[in-house]
C-alpha cells in the first residue's frame, strides 16, 4: 500500500487521459487529508478525481439547501463520511428514550440524506459503517442492553446495511471492517483528533481512499471476474508430482488447514460468480487426480472453468485461459506461492493482478482478505452460475476444434434465442449488463435499474433482450438493445451490448434481424447506430460496417427496406 505522502505527491503527476470522476465529500470531521488521499489514490487507478470538499461539518446544510455548492458541482458520487466520535457525542446529547431509539434515528437521517440527494442529482451515494468505540459505560453488559452506545452503534451499522439493500444507488464503505482488521489504535490518532479534528490517522487514509476507489471502479464496470490458482503449495501443501496423493497437505494433515481454508474461500468466490481457473506446471493427469479423488479437496473439477496443467510457461498458459474465457487481463487475479513465477507473470502480462502472497503460507488468508480483491457493485442469481457457463464454453471450444468449417460447427450447436422487450424479470440483468460490459458495447452508456425501468415505460423507446441456448447449456440473457425513436423515420440504436461469451456465433446477425423486424413493424425507414470509442471496445469498431450499415458522419445508417435478412444458425424460441 502506498503511504499518504506518496499519494500526496501523486497529485502533481499527469492525470490527462485518466477517467474524470466527480466526487463530493461531505464529512462531519476535518476532511482535507482524506480528500488529498482520495485524489492521490486516483492516480494509482487511472482516475482523475475532481473533488468538491464541503466545509467542515456541513452535511445537512449542503444536502438540504438546493442552492448549495454541492448541487452546483453536480457530482457523480457523494461520499458522506460520518465518524463514530461525532456519533458518540450525538448519542450522549439524547435523553433515555432518544438513546434507546438512537439507531433508528440515525438510519432515518441517512435515508433522508439519500432521498434528498437522489431527488436532485443523478448520483451514487457512498456512506460508511461506523467503526466501533465501546465507551464501557455499561462494561460488557453493554452488549446485553439496548441502552448502551455499543448496542446502538452496532444496530446502526446493521440498519445502514439494510438501508443500502433497499436502494441500488446507495453503497457502503465498510470502515468498521477495516478497523477490525487493523485496530482502533491504527485508525484513530488522538493527536490529530485533538489538534485538527481529524478522526483518521495518516496511515489509514490510503486504505480508506482505496476502498472508496474500489467501490467507484466496480460501479463503473471495472472489477475482477476470475481467480487463477497455481496448485503445488498454493492450492495444497507440497508437490503432487513428488509427494503423491497421500503426501500433499490438506485437511488435518500437516499444514493442510491453510490450503483447505484457501479452497473454501475460493469456493465461496465461485458461488458468488468469480470464475475459477487452474494454471500449474504439472502433468495434466497427475494435477487432476486430487480434484477427482482426494477426500479432503474442497474444489472439484466441476468448480474449475479452465484447467491448464502442462510444462509451458505460465504467461502463455494464462494467455490461453484468457482466450477461452474472453475477459480482460485486468479482470484476472493470479495466485502463486512462487515469487519467481509471480514476477514473470507480472512482467509478461502487466494488466493482471498478482498478489504477493506472504512467505509463510499460514498468513495467506489474512493477507488475501485484506487485499479486497473482489469488490463488486451488484450480485444477481446469474452470477452464481458463471463458472458452469464458462465451463460449457471451454467444451464448445474443444468441439469447435473438431470441425473443419465454422458453419458446420455452428449448425451442430442447435442454437435458439428468446427475443422480447425488457420486463420486470429481466430489468436487473439488463442494468447489470449496461454497467459491466466493456468490450462488445457500442456506446458504453451505463444505466441503473431505475433508468432501465424508466426507459422500458417510455413510449419513445423500444427495447429488446435476447437469450441464447445451445446443446451444451443456457447462456441466459446475453444481448441488450435499446432503441430510441429519433423522428418518424429514424430509429436510433442507443445501446447495443452483447456478452463476449457469445461472440462468433452469428448472434450479431440474428440481433440485427430482430432490430429490423421491429423497425419495419413500427414503420420506421431507417436504423441509425453510433460507435463511441473507449479503451476497451475496439472489437466493435467495425461492427456497423460489417453488418452493412453506411457511414454518415460519425454515425452509421441502414435503410430498412434494402436490408436483406442475414443468415444465422439461430432459431427464434
Amino acid at each position, binding site marked *: 500500500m502506498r503511504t*499518504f*505522502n506518496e499519494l500526496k505527491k501523486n497529485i*502533481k503527476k499527469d492525470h490527462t487521459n485518466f477517467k474524470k470522476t466527480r466526487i463530493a465529500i461531505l464529512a462531519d470531521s476535518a476532511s482535507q*487529508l482524506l480528500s488529498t488521499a482520495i485524489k492521490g489514490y486516483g492516480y494509482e487507478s487511472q482516475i482523475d478525481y475532481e473533488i468538491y470538499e464541503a466545509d467542515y461539518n456541513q452535511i445537512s446544510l449542503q444536502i438540504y439547501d438546493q442552492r448549495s455548492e454541492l448541487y452546483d458541482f453536480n457530482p457523480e458520487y457523494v461520499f458522506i463520511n460520518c465518524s463514530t466520535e461525532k456519533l458518540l457525542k450525538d448519542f450522549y446529547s439524547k435523553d433515555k428514550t432518544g438513546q434507546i431509539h438512537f439507531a433508528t434515528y440515525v438510519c432515518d437521517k441517512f435515508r433522508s440524506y439519500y432521498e434528498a440527494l437522489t431527488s436532485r442529482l443523478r448520483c451514487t451515494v457512498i456512506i460508511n459503517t461506523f467503526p466501533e468505540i465501546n465507551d464501557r459505560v455499561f462494561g460488557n453488559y453493554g452488549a446485553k442492553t439496548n441502552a448502551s452506545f455499543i448496542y446502538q452503534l452496532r444496530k446502526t451499522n446493521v440498519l445502514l446495511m439494510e438501508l443500502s439493500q433497499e436502494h441500488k444507488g446507495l453503497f457502503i464503505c465498510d470502515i468498521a471492517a477495516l478497523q477490525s482488521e487493523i485496530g482502533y489504535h491504527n485508525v484513530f*490518532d488522538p*493527536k490529530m483528533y485533538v*489538534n485538527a479534528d481529524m478522526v483518521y*490517522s*495518516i496511515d489509514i487514509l490510503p486504505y480508506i481512499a482505496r476502498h472508496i476507489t474500489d467501490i467507484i471502479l466496480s460501479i463503473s464496470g471495472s472489477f475482477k471476474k476470475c481467480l487463477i490458482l497455481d496448485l503445488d503449495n498454493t492450492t495444497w501443501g507440497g508437490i503432487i508430482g513428488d509427494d503423491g496423493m497421500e503426501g500433499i497437505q490438506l485437511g488435518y494433515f500437516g499444514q493442510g488447514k491453510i490450503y483447505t481454508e484457501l479452497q473454501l474461500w475460493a469456493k465461496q468466490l465461485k458461488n458468488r460468480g468469480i470464475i475459477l481457473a487452474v494454471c500449474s506446471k504439472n502433468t495434466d493427469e497427475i494435477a487432476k487426480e486430487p480434484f477427482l479423488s482426494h477426500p479432503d479437496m474442497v474444489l472439484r473439477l466441476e468448480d474449475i472453468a479452465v484447467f491448464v496443467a502442462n510444462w509451458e510457461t505460465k504467461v502463455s498458459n494464462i494467455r490461453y485461459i484468457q482466450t477461452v474465457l474472453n475477459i480482460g487481463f485486468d479482470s484476472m487475479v493470479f495466485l502463486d506461492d512462487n515469487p519467481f513465477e509471480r514476477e514473470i507473470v507480472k512482467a509478461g502480462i502487466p494488466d493482471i493482478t498478482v498478489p504477493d502472497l506472504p512467505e509463510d503460507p499460514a498468513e495467506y488468508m489474512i493477507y488475501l482478505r485484506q487485499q479486497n480483491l473482489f469488490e463488486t457493485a451488484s450480485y444477481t442469481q446469474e452470477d452464481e452460475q458463471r463458472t458452469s457457463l464458462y465451463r460449457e464454453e471451454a467444451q464448445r471450444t474443444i468441439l469447435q476444434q473438431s470441425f473443419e468449417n465454422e458453419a458446420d460447427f455452428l449448425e451442430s450447436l442447435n442454437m435458439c434465442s428468446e427475443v422480447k422487450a425488457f420486463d420486470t424479470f429481466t430489468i436487473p440483468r439488463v442494468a447489470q449488463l449496461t454497467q459491466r460490459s466493456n468490450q462488445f458495447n457500442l456506446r458504453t452508456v451505463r444505466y441503473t435499474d431505475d433508468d432501465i425501468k424508466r426507459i422500458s415505460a417510455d413510449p419513445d423507446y423500444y427495447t429488446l433482450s435476447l437469450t441464447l441456448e445451445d446443446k451444451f447449456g443456457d447462456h441466459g440473457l446475453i444481448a441488450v438493445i435499446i432503441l430510441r425513436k429519433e423522428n418518424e423515420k429514424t430509429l436510433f440504436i442507443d445501446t447495443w451490448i452483447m456478452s463476449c461469451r457469445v461472440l462468433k456465433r452469428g448472434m450479431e446477425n440474428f440481433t440485427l434481424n430482430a432490430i429490423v423486424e421491429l423497425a419495419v413493424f413500427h414503420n420506421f425507414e431507417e436504423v441509425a447506430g453510433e460507435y463511441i470509442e473507449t479503451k476497451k471496445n475496439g472489437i466493435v469498431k467495425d461492427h456497423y460496417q460489417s453488418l452493412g450499415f453506411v457511414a454518415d458522419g460519425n454515425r452509421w445508417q441502414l435503410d430498412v427496406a434494402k436490408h436483406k435478412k442475414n443468415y444465422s444458425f439461430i432459431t427464434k424460441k
Partner: protein
Amino acid sequence: MDHNQIIKDVNDIFIDVLDNEDIKLTTATTAIDIDEWDSLNHIQLVVAIEKHFKVKFNTTEIQGWKNVGEMCSAIEKRVNQ
C-alpha cells in the same frame, strides 16, 4: 544522537512531507519562514517525525514549539531518554 544529526533528519522529513527540495532548516526557522508549513502540514510533520525517531510527543508539546530548534530539542530529549 546529536543535535546536528537530528536537524539533518528533520530537514529531510520537511523536504519529503512538504514536497519542497529547497527547504534548509536552522534552529531559528519558524512556520512563517516556510510557505507550506501550515497547521495541517504541521500535524503531518509531527506524525512523520514520531515515526522516524520512534518517539511519541504529547498533544500540548506539539503546539508549543516556537521554532525548529525547540522541536529538535524535544526530539533529542525523547530519543536520549
